């Protein structure tokens, strides 16, 4: 550990002020990046979380080292980790498209609180290193998260006999396309008599990128398939 910080390991007025300011600073640095991305929890939220967490560990240490109360100094600080889990769960929202938003914000807030705990307990090296890591993760690593696999797509296949559908399913399997969902709809009575009887909505997930028009072309040319289209 750095000897530079040794005078600040004990609870004194100077170290108290230093810890609180450092906690605010680290919280603000992390939060500023979130604010810049216009996320729900901005730099004020992060500062408060970091500051509060720092106070909780400091109070524990103060009661033990300065007031000589027999206690476990980590008990108070430790509860912050659970508490922030709650707050984090509250920031997660479910969108209309049934996806979850705000998980990274929740994780960032949680980690920010832990950095506050480290600073509050006088573990400045860890707190500062972790802050640097968080900033690096949030700014420098963005490109690594941008690799995305080919998207899922849905096709609508009109057919008459169920053997035709089996054929399509086998075709997808042979081409290493995962069938995520299958929904068969009966079209009887909807149009004229020679209209196709059923339509199957198939959600496909290719493991590698595929030419969709070529794929549809192959499916349409199968026996018993009347029509195939992408939705």
């Amino acid at each position: 550990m750095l000897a530079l910080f040794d005078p600040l390991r004990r609870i004194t007025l100077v170290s108290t002020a230093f810890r609180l300011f450092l906690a605010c600073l680290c919280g603000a640095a992390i939060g500023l990046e979130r604010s810049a991305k216009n996320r729900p929890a901005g730099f004020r939220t992060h500062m408060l979380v970091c500051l509060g967490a720092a106070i909780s560990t400091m109070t524990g240490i103060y009661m033990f080292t300065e007031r000589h109360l027999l206690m476990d100094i980590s008990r108070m600080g430790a509860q912050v980790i659970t508490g922030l889990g709650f707050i984090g769960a509250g920031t997660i929202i479910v969108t209309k498209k049934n996806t979850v938003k705000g998980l990274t914000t929740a994780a960032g807030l949680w980690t920010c609180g832990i950095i506050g705990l480290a600073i509050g307990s006088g573990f400045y090296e860890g707190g500062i290193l972790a802050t640097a890591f968080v900033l690096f993760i949030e700014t420098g690593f963005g490109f690594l998260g941008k690799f995305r696999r080919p998207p899922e797509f849905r096709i609508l296949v009109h057919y008459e006999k169920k053997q035709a559908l089996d054929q399509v399913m086998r075709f997808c399997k042979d081409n290493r396309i995962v069938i995520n969902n299958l929904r068969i709809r009966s079209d009887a009575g909807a149009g004229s008599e020679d209209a196709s009887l059923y339509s199957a909505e198939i959600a496909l997930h290719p493991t590698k990128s595929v030419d969709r028009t070529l794929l549809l072309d192959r499916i349409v040319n199968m026996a018993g398939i009347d029509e195939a289209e992408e939705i």
Partner: protein
Amino acid sequence: MITLLHEFTLTTVLVRLLLAVASAGVIGMDRSYKKREAGLHTYMLISLGAAMTIMIGIYEYEMLLTQWADAVAVVGMKYDVSRFGAQVLSGIGFLGAGTIITVAHQQKAGLTTATGLFATACMGMAAGAGYVECVAIAFVLIFVVVAMMQPLETGFKRRLRNITMCVEYRSVEDLAVVTEAINRCGAQIFDIEVERAASKNEKKPASAIFTIQLAKSNPSHSDMLSTIAELPCVESVQELIA
């Protein structure tokens, strides 16, 4: 080499943090690639935080033995190094609860996200403790389970005789027709749950979720779906796979 990491110095702190972030990053990258809710950033942040909790505990313990030893001499020693780390489990549990949502037809989504985060947080704690052996093995296992086992599980479910499907139909009597058709195939019905009751005013069809076990003689899922779809009263049928 590994025992060098057991010391608690600035270098080992850095190495432990790097270990936590890098291992979680690889798992997170796969999650990002698959466009899951929790991606690269979330995994790295949580692993980093988890590693920090363990190190805060170790740090405070070291301080109690050195800088704060005078207070210990007066009051006595009472400290639990694991307390910070222990709270990570419930903290991430709560966070994970937020990612689990109910989607259409009473299915759940986000369970793997929640449990993946949980396992990664635990791995981060091992990294924070300098338990490199565990991190190395756990990393491989978590990666294999999270990144490679999904097709295996889905494939397994498609081969099972148990199948859950959502059937849309028009009127109340149709439910009996569908039930009869399923019975005729030799399948056994475990459960029928009406999702939306039939009503004459509404344009939306009624729907029910069937949990059935297919006959041993014909365990094909698509055959069953086609048979149900062929019934004139059925609007649509869909298999539900979690």
